[in-house]
């Protein structure tokens, strides 16, 4: 087992930048003011620029130009703003090529954005309430692949044997490596001090029925991830070796027209968001 070596790699993985952490801490403060948020962002002018670009993107579709952090907070809301800060801060690390999974440079990031917008599309299509954390959970669900990739590469023969027996990819990972990319991703996000609900969704995104508590954020990430892979976004060597959970399909009441409707819009949404996050 390579578990010790993998655990050591998690500890050397890049941390979440300070501005994102400070904003995350503010989100739970009911008395937080726009001035406080402006104060955090002022320390990072590049971040402010990126945020305004995002706020003005076609994906959010505000008719008037968003010209200041203050306006962005008012129009987007603090939760949305923090999601955008996290997206801005993680794009560089998630843009890398991922060996092992055969994802060329940019593909993991493209997949992450696509799953985020597909997940938000599903939340709207299914009229789900209380799924505020969906964007970030979806965006970061595969972050563990960045760590596990080279270990998957090294032990691929064993993974392939497990796949040939009809096992899902994440089970094959666990047989070969003693862990899988979902579990590793959850460890990274725990280190980044992300909320428990997001960590939980990432940890169980391939096996949602194993989560101690059922959660729609987890369920929607599970479905959106599969959907994006099916339409070829971020599908590497692991192909479609994953099983949709019948339990989740039932819980969400998701049908094929829901999936197909969201799929038909996902590429456009992802491109709009991606254009706003580029350079």
């Amino acid at each position: 087992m390579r578990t010790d070596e993998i655990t050591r790699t998690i500890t050397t993985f890049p941390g979440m930048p300070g501005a994102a952490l400070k904003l995350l801490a503010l989100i739970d403060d009911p008395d937080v003011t726009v001035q406080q948020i402006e104060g955090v962002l002022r320390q990072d002018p590049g971040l402010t620029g990126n945020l305004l670009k995002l706020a003005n993107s076609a994906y959010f579709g505000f008719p008037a130009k968003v010209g200041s952090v203050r306006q962005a907070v008012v129009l987007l809301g603090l939760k949305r703003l923090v999601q955008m800060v996290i997206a801005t801060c993680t794009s560089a690390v998630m843009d890398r090529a991922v060996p092992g999974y055969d994802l060329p440079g940019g593909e993991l990031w493209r997949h992450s954005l696509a799953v985020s917008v597909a997940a938000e599309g599903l939340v709207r299509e299914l009229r789900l309430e209380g799924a505020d954390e969906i964007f970030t959970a979806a965006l970061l669900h595969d972050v563990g692949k960045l760590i596990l990739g080279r270990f998957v590469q090294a032990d691929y023969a064993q993974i392939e044997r497990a796949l040939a027996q009809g096992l899902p990819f994440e089970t094959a990972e666990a047989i070969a490596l003693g862990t899988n990319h979902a579990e590793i991703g959850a460890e990274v996000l725990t280190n980044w001090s992300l909320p428990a609900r997001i960590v939980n969704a990432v940890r169980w995104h391939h096996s949602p029925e194993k989560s101690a508590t059922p959660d729609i954020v987890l369920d929607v990430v599970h479905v959106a991830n599969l959907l994006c892979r099916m339409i070829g976004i971020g599908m590497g060597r692991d192909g479609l070796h994953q099983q949709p959970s019948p339990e989740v399909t039932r819980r969400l009441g998701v049908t094929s027209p829901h999936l197909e409707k969201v799929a038909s819009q996902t590429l456009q949404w992802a491109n709009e968001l991606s254009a706003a996050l580029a350079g």
Partner: protein
Amino acid sequence: MNHTVMVGDMKIGVDGDMVVTHALGSCLGLVVFDPAVKVGGLLHAMLPLSSINPEKARANPAMFVDTGVPLLFNALYEKGAVKSRLVVKAAGCGNPMGKNEVFKIGERNYTVLKKLLWKNNILLEAEDVGGMVSRTIHFDVSSGQVVLSSGGVKQPL
């Protein structure tokens, strides 16, 4: 010249061209070739029926099998292809594991294709569909040769 066909896209090639599409999961990859005039096309359609999003279908008919397949054939006829000479090959239409019907978009893509071809008296010369793998199509319009690659393994279709 090399053409890359994105998801929900179609490209026509002539003698000397290579037409490629990557990462076919549930999507349909359809190759149609006229060997006499050496013109061919490749469609990468995502979803079975345009009725799920008519607005999208008007803007982008190649996204759906029911609007994309006629689009491909008509584009080839305009380039001088003749129906009786056409060689038609299909790949993709995969599905995730398990029996969950909700997720069988690949199967539905294939069913709609077969219905369309049957109605128009067109036979599939070759196919590699279903399963859980990601497929890439390389279509050489000079020779009509179609090569599929999947998990690092290449084979002619």
